[in-house]
């Protein structure tokens, strides 16, 4: 009895498998190749942009991080004495090399942001609003820089400018990061 049932089940399985396999192949309604090729090209551009710009940005960030304690030390006030000295001599070099380093870093960040702005993926509405807000704040810092006389204020403003540029750069990278993100749980499925 069991043999007969098993045989019947196997025959039924085999006939179902045969029927399913006999279903004709389908053809997609539209040619997906142009879109696929375009996606591949876009991703190549993005990957290049990210690979070329991220190390530079990282290096600039690292340099700034390493230099920052020194910058703070050199500009931090032994306040009364220093101020007194400055006011008496009117010729204190206001930590000029440090400001130069900050200006150079700021230029690097600005160039990076401009490259991303020019060649990168378009920002969506929310990101665009954030970008405009950041640019406005950078403009305000520039205005303050043009009026700043105190070296410590100047250093602080340059640092602020660099931070804003970094935020702007990261904002431009967001579309790429989102595009390449997939839930990690999917990766285990590809295992051949």
């Amino acid at each position: 009895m069991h043999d007969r049932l098993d045989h019947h089940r196997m025959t039924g399985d085999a006939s179902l498998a045969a029927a399913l396999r006999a279903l004709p192949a389908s053809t997609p309604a539209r040619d997906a190749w142009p879109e696929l090729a375009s996606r591949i090209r876009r991703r190549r551009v993005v990957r290049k942009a990210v690979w070329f710009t991220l190390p530079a940005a990282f290096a600039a960030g690292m340099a700034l991080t390493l230099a920052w304690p020194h910058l703070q030390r050199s500009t931090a006030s032994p306040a009364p004495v220093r101020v007194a000295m400055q006011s008496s001599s009117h010729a204190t070099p206001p930590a000029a090399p440090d400001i130069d380093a900050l200006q150079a870093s700021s230029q690097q960040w600005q160039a990076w942001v401009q490259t991303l702005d020019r060649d990168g993926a378009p920002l969506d509405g929310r990101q665009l609003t954030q970008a405009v807000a950041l640019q406005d704040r950078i403009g305000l810092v520039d205005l303050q820089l043009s009026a700043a006389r105190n070296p410590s204020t100047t250093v602080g403003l340059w640092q602020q400018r660099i931070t804003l540029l970094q935020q702007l750069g990261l904002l431009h990278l967001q579309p790429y990061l989102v595009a390449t993100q997939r839930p990690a749980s999917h990766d285990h499925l590809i295992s051949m």
Partner: protein
Amino acid sequence: MDTQGTFRQTVEPALVRRLQRGELAAFETIYRRFERAAWTLALRLTGRADVAQEVLQDAMLKAFERARQFRGDAPFAAWLRKLVVNEALMQLRHDRLHVIELFDETHADDDAPAPWAHADSATLDRALNRLPDAARAVLWLYHVEGYTHLEIAEQFGRSTSFSKSQLARATKRLRELLAPQAEDTPCTIGSTTTA
């Protein structure tokens, strides 16, 4: 045997090497060769043309970007087929797989005649598309792709009991869906999804 539209095609090692170097032209050749097979598999597993389109795109994109991971110890077509299966199941898990329809737990009548033996392909295609996602995918993976229950369970992240019960339920439901069709209106229902 006509292998067009199936994964039973060989890919020349030289073509695979060109793909692994990132040559888009080589990839287009491979894409064109497997487009129908990948699309059909995606459609059978997901049951929806729009989702299948997405699966086709994403699986092929992964094939291009991960071509260097292909070690050549299995046929390229099998590797590509696995990418499509993975992508399709991923889509199902993302979108709709949580909706696993509960069937009547009564056992199928094993002595009943197999209605699919008499159903035309369009009718069977329609019935297949009316199965719940998980059941349809398990049925297809088991009977057509030759997956074992253990492999199916791993793909779904479930137990082998899940695979077995889904298969039994899908078969029972398919019987129900096809029985009246086979008796009443054989060979009359058209389909828009098959070529």
